[in-house]
């Protein structure tokens, strides 16, 4: 398990794909992130990230239905793979470990310091 490398943006995208569960296609992901995190996401950045993670094997995609508003173009839905799940789990675990390792006094000291 040496490296499940995930960038910050990549992690957000992965999590959002998880949230949307089966309805995760690019525009929906973009909207979800924008709504929850109050940050704009460019189509270019999103697609690049999705492609990259698909290449790494964290995500897999399948072609979905096409609608009229998309001028007949199909949607491409994303799903987290088993490897992907391990990767975000790993990310979370490492965070938690780090969180846990912070002495409690830090928080107080910080508060006191204000």
């Amino acid at each position, binding site marked *: 398990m040496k490296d499940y490398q995930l960038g910050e943006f990549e992690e957000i995208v992965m999590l959002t794909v998880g949230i949307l569960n089966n309805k995760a*296609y*690019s*525009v929906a992901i*973009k909207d979800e992130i924008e709504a929850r995190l109050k940050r704009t996401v*460019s*189509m*270019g*950045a999103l*697609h*690049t990230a999705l*492609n*990259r993670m698909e290449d790494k094997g964290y995500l897999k995609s399948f*072609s979905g239905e*096409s*609608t009229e*508003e*998309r*001028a007949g*173009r*199909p*949607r*491409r839905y994303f799903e987290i793979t088993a490897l992907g799940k391990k990767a975000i789990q790993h990310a979370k675990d490492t965070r938690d470990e780090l969180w846990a390792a912070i002495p409690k006094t830090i928080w107080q000291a910080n508060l006191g310091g204000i």
Partner: protein
Amino acid sequence: MNSNPTPPKFFLRFFRWFCHPRMLDYIEGDLLEVYERNLKTLGKRKADWRFIKDVLLLFRPGIIRPRKPYQNLTPYGMYKSYFKIGWRTLLRNKEYTLINIAGLALSITCCILIFVLVKHHSGFDDFHQNEDRIYRIVTEQHRESVSFTNSVPSPLGMVLRENHSYTEKVARMFQEADAVISFERNGEKQLIKEPQGFAFTEPEFFDIFNFPLSQGNMKTALAEPNTAIITERLAKKYFGEQNPIGQVITYDNFLPFTITGVLEDLPENTDITTEIFVSYSSMKDFNPWLASDEAWGGITGGMYCYALLRPGVSPVEVEEALAPYVKLHRPESKNVHHYKLQALSDIHFDGRYGGAMEKSDIGILIAIGIFLLLTACVNFVNLATAQALKRSKEVGVRKVLGSFRTQLFWQFIFETAIIATLSILIALVAAFALVPYVNDFFSTQIPVNFLTDGTLVLFIIGLDVLITLLAGCYPAFILTGFKPVTALKGKLSMQQLGGFNTRRSLIVMQFAISQVLIIGVIVIMNQMRYAKQAELGFDKESIVMVGIGSDSLYSMKSLKNEFLRLPGIEKVSLCYQPPASENSWNNSIRFGSDTEEVNFPTNMKLADADYISTFDLELLAGRNLTPSDTVREMVVNEALLQSLGITSYEDALGEMIYANGGNMVGPIVGIVRNFHDRSMHAEISPALITTAGNMYFNYAIKINGQSVKTTLEEIEELWEAQNPDKLFEYSFVDDEIAQFYTAEDTLLKGIQFFSFIAIFIGCLGLYGLISFMISQKTKEVGIRKVMGGGVAHIIWLFGQEFVRLILIAFLIAAPIGWWFMNQWLQDFEFKITLDVWTFALAIGSSIIIAALTVGYQVIRVAYINPVLSLKTE
């Protein structure tokens, strides 16, 4: 309002172009979905902007299409196949290939040679600094008519330098051509004649022009009188390996020069021809009048003046500033000088001022090159379309298998390119081999290693592309236009193949071109024959002109008497020059009791009393001159009387003539019939013959026909006995007269050569076409013979077509040829008239040439046994 607005088209297209095809559909769908939504919430303008932003942000690695597996960058395999197919086609049709390559190679050879020649000529004197500010001063002489000379009065350069500030440098130069130079080598005296002579040159000359010294110092080299600079080539020729500096060369045994510098050899592309430059200050010993500051009275040929103008000075200003000097120094003269500034780049091209090559000649050469190239391309087009039928099945199959028209088009272009490149390779070898002959013919010095020349390489590549497109486009267009169904069913007929008429008109064009050339050749040849054989009004056969060796009239006369004692010599006359010569001394005379000089020049023929009998001039009235050493009496020609407006010979006899400013005076004692004193280009000018012992430069010796060679040797012996340290020179009068027409001879040879090539290329095309026609019509001929058609009938079947084409071509060629040759003849005062025979000969010869070309094939097919041609199906 559009109910369904679309995102900006350009950016959508841009996106489609760069996006990875695998993702194109999805992302485009996303884009459109977002756009649609934005349209509803934000409006069109903002939606458009967002769209554009999105597209631009998508333009990033990972989304841009990769180059590799989706695009084949080297269609090399296809080219290889084209090449293979093309090569096989060429090998299968050896005859056509040969005809095409021969024709193209021939015309390309000419094109390359013409290019080299034109390039050589247009690069003359382009290696000087500030070449755009260098001018030569020339003179327009306005008399009754205007004449042009490249020389000026000698003081002009001095006043331009000293009285005006237009120039940075002014250099005067006087070139004495045909000089005899003597020098000592290994203690022995050597005599050598330099046709380009030597030049009295002011040192500024070398500041204006870029001729570097290899030895010596330019600052001091020509400062002193009697110093000289010679080129390395001459130094080697004169002194071998010895150091030339400090050696002495002597002009005509009286004017010595010490060599103070050695010039690097002059480049080939300069019009400065002399290789000996001597200090201008020595000129006072050579010609005191010319060297003085007062020599405004006349112009001596060879007196040049070059000027380097200051930046920003226009030549017109200088011309205006020079005009007052004519009034100041030549107030009386009827010969009004207009001094003009001639740009350095024009010197080579202005024939009026002795330029070596007229711009129009360059134009003619280029036109010929284009002509020949077109003819060869026309041939190619002709043969290729004729052959198209053979390739139609191939085209059909290729189209059925999914070939695009553009692909097929390029395939055929590729085949043409193979032929063109092969021809160019052959042409290069040929041109390389021919360059020495071209140099000889045009008296140029084009270096033989011209293949290293960058512009030439570019030219050749350009030529290759041009020929390929020119010759290849039309056939390729025709070939690729077939409908596969008709092509495969074999239902294409010749008529459908881009027109028999196209091919006919091409043939007509070729014939027209060659007939114009034939007409040209015939007319020029006739005119030359006329000019060389016409009655000149004097005897030019077996008269040899021998230069005088000594200045003393006494020794001249004694040598003349010795000559007369030789058995092979009939007559001898001491004279200035023969009746007809390229250069002559033209003088304004005063007649009878008139107070003013006449306004026409009179050709001064100074000679002793034997001149008229030696040259067999015909006396119309009066008598010959009485022998004398000074001017006593005059004999004039009819043209002089005509110019004076005198109709009766008796009125003229006894009238006084004052020539050369009044110091040559005498009464008219005789009148001779007009003789041609210049080439047939010029009118017969007024002339007078008088005795003037100090102006004789030649012995005119009439030799009786039998033993010319031994007589010449005897003459030389006597001459050298009298003048041991001089160079014996002689020339025959008829040779000199033939020299008048050197330019025309060159033109004639050139046009003969090119018409030969044009006709040859035309014949190649004709031959190709007839063989094709015959292969198409073999069965028809067989059937006709079975039905009772005779040989003559069959021959006529093919022949009538060509006769008709030649006649049409003649109708085009005759007026064009007539017009051109009429223009050309305008140059001659004495000329032939264009008669019907010229044109009859032109059409006759082209019919014969055509008949010879197609004859063999036609006769062969006419005699073939119908069984043979009909047996196989």
